[in-house]
């Protein structure tokens, strides 16, 4: 049996990859973009509303009200995830739900929920950060790097 090697097979492979890339159906870009814009905007509007709400109810400053706002959004996202509704919404909203803190909460809740079959320790505890961990890691590393640079610049002054 001859093993096909050499230029003819390489060219066929390259041709195939190009054929696939050309033929790949693309997502409905315009619709996705509009949906992401609108839903992301609405989530932020909800956030703004919640900030005003907590400011009034708790009698704290607008800045301090950011914390209970974030917590509320996270609570709502976790609840919707648990009810099996978040992924149905996200299918249409795309980045509009993934980019706000709602996406972070969904990633953590979905992982914890999915792996509960493996128990509280291995599953819920061990796998909770599977999807969201990268965000925390890169956020912390960036913050460390930025503050070290800032610190050194200040020392140099």
């Amino acid at each position, binding site marked *: 049996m001859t093993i096909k090697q050499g230029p003819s097979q390489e060219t066929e492979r390259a041709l195939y990859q190009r054929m696939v890339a050309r033929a790949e159906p693309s997502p409905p870009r315009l619709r996705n973009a509009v949906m992401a814009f609108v839903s992301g905007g609405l989530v932020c509007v909800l956030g703004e509303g919640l900030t005003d709400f907590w400011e009034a109810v708790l009698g704290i400053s607008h800045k301090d009200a950011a914390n209970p706002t974030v917590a509320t959004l996270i609570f709502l996202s976790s609840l919707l995830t648990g009810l*099996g509704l978040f992924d149905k919404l996200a299918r249409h909203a795309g980045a509009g739900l993934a980019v706000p803190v709602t996406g972070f909460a*969904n990633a953590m809740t979905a992982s914890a929920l999915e792996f509960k079959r493996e128990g509280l320790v291995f599953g819920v505890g061990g796998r909770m950060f599977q999807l969201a961990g990268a965000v925390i890691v890169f956020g912390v590393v960036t913050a460390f790097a930025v503050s070290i640079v800032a610190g050194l610049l200040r020392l140099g002054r």
Partner: protein
Amino acid sequence: MARKRIGPQTVKLEQPPVIIGAAAVAGPLEAQGPLGQEYDRTYPDLTLGQSSFEKAERQMMIDACNLALQKAGITGKPPAVDYFLAGDLLNQIISASFSGLEVGVPMYGLYGACSTFCESLAIGAQLIDGGYADRVLCAASSHNAAAERQYRYPTEYGNQRKPYAQYTVTGAGAVVLAAIGEGPRITYCTTGRVVDFGIADPFNQGAAMAPAAVDTIEAHLRETGRRVEDYDLIVTGDLARFGRDMARQLAAQRNLILGGNYNDCGAMIYDHTRQDVHSGGSGCASSAIVTCGHLLKEMARGKLRRILVVATGALLSPTTFQQGENIPAIAHAVALEA
């Protein structure tokens, strides 16, 4: 060359083994698809009343096996079969192994990703024709939620799927092969080679597997001396709609015309106009439930006399993807004749 070998990849079965019983079970989405009435049993939800998706998949494989054995007229526990050949998509093929525990006969666990069903038929047929077995039970299964939580994302995670992505079929198919009996026969087996055409996107498995399918179909036709027209139907396992198009185009580039008698199980299982499955079905169950549920029944009805089932598998893991590797694929073909 060995006596029953007719080419580098193909063997001719001297005394073609018979399919004396077969059964397909499927999940709710599949039941709502175009072939929904063809399956022997369908389930209203993905859990089957079990406490995990993995246990549900196991139950489906056991159900399929029991139904197939029943139809073959084999009662008794353990059943009077010489081997149980089975595989699935889960790590360490736990569905197959735990089903094997239940079946209770000597077993070989198999992994060919989504090509496992034809792999099991081919090996089972050769065990019988080789004089090593009188009867073999072959099975394959997959489960959408169990596959997603292992290979991709948790089921409640809100991500948008690409339009060429495929949907893992929830179901199981089982076949009882015998040296003697009545039913369609397996006449040829063409074993696939691992093929890598440089596709690395795990969400585009159809494109990754299409070259393997074409490679195996070509080898089969060349080595048996048959033509595409000699088959009433050539069906691939789970290329789905996009992969099916890629296979057609790639084959055409090699002067192999896959025309009206070519289809794909993954494209047949769902109605993409009303079911949100993007390109179509994937998974071991794709080829298994279409063959056991629909194609064998069509053969019994006299509508199909000679078919070539080419199950396709994408041989990647989450690890290889994360390490930046391409997706190698394989396709195994069995010829079934009434």
